[in-house]
């Protein structure tokens, strides 16, 4: 069946990575087929009901600057917006929003349904078919087959997944949903290395059973800052979150039940994220802390379900009850879903290129948790790039890459391919060495021209971008040419205590401009010294980025390399000198040796074997 039809791109999985991948491929002009095990769980938020946050909020803006879905939908369905680190500098500020989980899903589904070039179908993929090292199609449960030129695999936590609630262990990729089987074995047959990771969620409780009078209210911003450059106003009704605290009794209950905690009985062996520890891990590793914060986040407007953020756990059901009931304000809380830990298969990201195409199979792309990352935003960023490059592959073009100096998405992917992972990878601003350049306010400046060039940015988005660019030019010109008392406004703005808002109050000429444009100019002026320094570093780095190194280099033949460097290079197989220089264990002398060989001619793998045969 369907055998005559060849798709350009098939996306397997419709989570945050898959949705962006399918939409991006379609915007690129490809015919994309999005296959999901369940149409009702498209863009499901498996974990907390929120989008954005530090570094993650920047990624959402980057996705938006490239025409992606996440930012627009988060704006339409956000029920509490906060600009984080508002009191700090723009490089470390970021937007975050609590989302109405159900509305978010429906909005993404609707968006995909309305995207020309995307077909959505409910199918369970069992295997990816290849011929001569290149993708040819997929096989689904029930025998259905689809042919295609490229595949983007975004299975989330579903590959051979197992859920743990205390001693209770069941197969499943998310609470109440089955695992995906067959694909991991299929990947192993293709030669991929497959590893295992762990993550977890807390319980969800009924809001009507919470005593809010005992909790601290956390309101959203009065003037919400949207994610998308295309959003003018936030229309959703806004709600509050609340903060509770664990106490000594909570910790006692957890300690008394540790012998039943899968993380500590050896039932779970894979690595979980250190930045998102389970409540059991928190009280063991930080035994001196007498309390931990718990954030109660509403899951939506039309439901009373509340997410107990900060209390991720895989303790048995009765222990979860006892633990939550010991918390002030939650004494009578009623659990609606228990917390659980999930273990799932991933493929070490040393298997992928910076284009997200696998090194082993042409036309096969990985995005999201299969690459060892965590987070909706990290998944979306990868999905977007994988979608672009799968579409390019389908028409016989090479993939594009995004640099560390261009975007957090670039930092993310470069870290994956040059360093690998040993726990689920989450983005932090501290991972970006060019943090002052990768701001949320300038994501459009960094990426929209690229999106335009690729043809994935809408005409309206481009018009807005050009308008903002023109405004920034006019503001800068006005500031530098206006010099009352011999000091230009640009100079005045450099003083720590001066702000663009203050100047806007003094000078009516500035009132005509958008807040966004004013803020961008302010930042560029205030931090010009630092920005110049970072840009100089970027210039230096770019040179190495442009120097490609063969992926099939025979490192054993590069006799001058030190042992450690040789082993690391063999494992990572960098594609550029720049990538090689960031691999831990490879030093500047080793890079010199690679550059000498690049000029001299790099011995390639397989040549010796051929000669011998």
């Amino acid at each position: 069946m369907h055998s005559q039809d060849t798709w350009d791109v098939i996306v397997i999985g419709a989570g945050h990575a898959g949705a962006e991948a399918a939409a991006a491929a379609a915007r690129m002009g490809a015919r994309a087929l999005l296959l999901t095990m369940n149409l009702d769980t498209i863009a499901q938020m498996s974990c907390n009901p929120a989008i954005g946050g530090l570094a993650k909020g920047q990624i959402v803006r980057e996705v938006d600057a490239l025409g992606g879905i996440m930012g627009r939908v988060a704006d339409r369905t956000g029920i509490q917006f906060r600009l984080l680190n508002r009191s700090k500098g723009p490089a470390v500020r970021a937007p975050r929003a609590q989302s109405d989980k159900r509305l978010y899903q429906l909005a993404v589904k609707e968006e995909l349904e309305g995207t020309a070039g995307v077909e959505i179908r409910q199918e369970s993929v069992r295997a990816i078919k290849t011929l001569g090292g290149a993708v040819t199609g997929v096989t689904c449960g029930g025998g259905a087959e689809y042919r295609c030129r490229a595949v983007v695999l975004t299975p989330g936590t579903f590959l051979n997944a197992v859920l743990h609630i205390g001693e209770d262990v069941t197969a499943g990729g998310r609470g109440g949903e089955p695992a995906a089987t067959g694909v991991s074995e299929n990947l192993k047959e293709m030669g991929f290395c497959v590893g295992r990771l762990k993550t977890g969620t807390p319980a969800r409780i009924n809001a009507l059973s919470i005593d809010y009078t005992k909790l601290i209210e956390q309101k959203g911003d009065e003037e919400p800052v949207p994610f998308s450059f295309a959003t003018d106003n936030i229309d959703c009704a806004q709600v509050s979150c609340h903060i509770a605290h664990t106490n000594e009794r909570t910790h006692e209950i957890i300690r008394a039940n540790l012998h039943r905690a899968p993380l500590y009985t050896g039932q779970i062996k894979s690595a979980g994220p250190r930045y998102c520890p389970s409540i059991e891990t928190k009280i063991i590793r930080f035994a001196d802390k007498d309390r931990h914060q718990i954030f109660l986040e509403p899951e939506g407007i039309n439901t009373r379900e509340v997410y107990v953020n900060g209390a991720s756990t895989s303790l048995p059901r009765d222990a979860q009850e006892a633990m939550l009931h010991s918390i002030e304000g939650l004494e009578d809380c009623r659990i609606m879903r228990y917390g659980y830990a999930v273990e799932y298969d991933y493929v070490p990201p040393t298997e992928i290129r910076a284009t997200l195409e696998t090194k082993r199979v042409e036309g096969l792309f990985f995005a999201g948790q299969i690459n060892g990352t965590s987070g909706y935003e990290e998944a979306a960023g990868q999905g977007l790039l994988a979608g672009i490059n799968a579409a390019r592959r389908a028409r016989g073009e090479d993939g594009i890459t995004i640099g560390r100096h261009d975007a957090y998405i670039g930092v993310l992917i470069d870290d994956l391919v040059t360093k690998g992972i040993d726990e689920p990878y989450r983005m932090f601003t501290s991972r970006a060495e060019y943090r002052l350049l990768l701001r949320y306010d300038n994501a459009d400046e960094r990426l929209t021209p690229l999106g335009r060039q690729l043809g994935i940015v809408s005409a309206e988005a481009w018009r807005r971008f050009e308008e903002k660019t023109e405004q920034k030019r006019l503001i800068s010109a006005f500031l530098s040419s206006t010099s009352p008392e011999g000091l230009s406004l640009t100079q005045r703005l450099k003083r720590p205590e001066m702000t663009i808002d203050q100047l806007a109050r003094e000078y009516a000429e500035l009132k005509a401009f958008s807040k966004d444009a004013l803020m961008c100019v302010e930042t560029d002026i205030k931090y010009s010294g630092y920005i110049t320094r970072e840009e100089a570093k970027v210039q230096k780095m770019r040179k190495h980025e442009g120097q490609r190194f063969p992926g099939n280099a025979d490192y054993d033949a590069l006799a001058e390399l030190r042992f450690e460097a040789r082993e690391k290079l063999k494992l990572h197989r960098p594609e550029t000198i720049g990538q090689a220089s960031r691999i831990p264990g490879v030093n500047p002398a080793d890079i010199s040796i690679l550059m000498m060989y690049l000029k001299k001619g790099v011995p390639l793998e397989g040549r010796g074997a051929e000669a011998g045969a």
Partner: protein
Amino acid sequence: MNADDTIVAIASASGKSARGIVRLSGPDAAAIVSRLVDEPPGEGTYVRLLRRIKLPDTGPFPVILYVMRAPRSYTREDVVEIHAPGSPPLLAAILAQTLRLGARQAEAGEFTKRAFLNGRIDLAQAEAVLAIIQSASVQEERMALSALTGHLGGEVKAIRDGLVSLAADIEAGLDFFEEDVTFAGPARQAEAVDSASRAVASLVEESTLRRTFREEVIVVIYGAANAGKSSLFNMLAGDDIAIVRDQPGTTRDILEAAAQIGGVHFLFVDTAGVRTAAEVIEKVAVERTRAFVREAHMVLFVVDASETPGSDVETLYEEMQGLTHIVVLNKADKGLAIDEEGWRERYGEGAVLEVSSKSGDGREALEAALVDFVRGGRVDMSTARFALAERQRRSLEEALDALGRAAEAIAAGAGDEFVSLEIKEAATCLGRITGEDYAEDLLDEVFSRFCLGK
């Protein structure tokens, strides 16, 4: 492909020579030299110019500049050579000034590497460059681990660890602002930056450090137990003894003494302690001593000549193979079981001297021989050892600058992201000495110290 930075190195063989050369290659070569001399070299190529050079601690003195503009030079980049009198401290001072003005210390073989990458030389020569880079890389790795630089590495590591910990604190405050944890405030930041600054400054100042930066000839005293190494050390250190320090807090028990003999700066290193060390640490200690011997510029191989050398002495002497050394037949006062002639007959030609470290007889001859070795160019001073030292100092100075900017940023209330930027830069500079990278350490620090994450 043209490099975007300018490299510099002392290009002449070290030790005694009439003329020394400091060579620069890269786009800023002429600009850097312009700022060092009384009159800029101008636009000409293949010119020889007489100029006067200005250095911080000396009056102006004459040098000759050779200017070769790209692409008509060895590297096909702009090359300027400063020819000056062949005094090692003077050349080091010129080198240091060029580094301050923005040049970078050349890696081993880097001039030739650039020549190759710019198409100036052929493939066969490339092999030679690869070999140089490889050996330098191995040597640097060994240096980083070696006992001679070990104490510097240890102190730098401690300072760097403190900075990484501070940066982790600040970064955690930025990335995890919502947590119920107090991270470093301005007062703690200022205190930590200040103490790191003072520690780095004192490293730059510290005389032991200056020793490794100065062109000092490192002489290790080596030999079998009871050969009289310590008394020989005391004899040479004599009244000129500048520093005798044992290294506290380490298992090694090494004595060093600086002495100026015949205008040459020597650093004598006594390895005697390791031989009397307890049985358990003997093996480790012996390894460490061997590392000293390999790193040294030259070795005084001490033999108890009142007895006929046994197999233990012969085994040790085999280690001298390929090393610059003088054999000291000690305990001449007790009567010699083997004399200079006898030694040469049995073990071949080489420098051999009879000395009594007890009576002081033979001291002058030994000192004259040491000076002769250096002046006669028999001591190889042009190795990466010196280059590394200069680079280390440069890294320390850069770290100090970054810490200064960090202190300013804290005082001005510029924002934690800027303070952190400078502190990470300082840590990166120090990491160049210890061979550590900050990025991974930082997150490890954060997650090990704070309970983070919702």
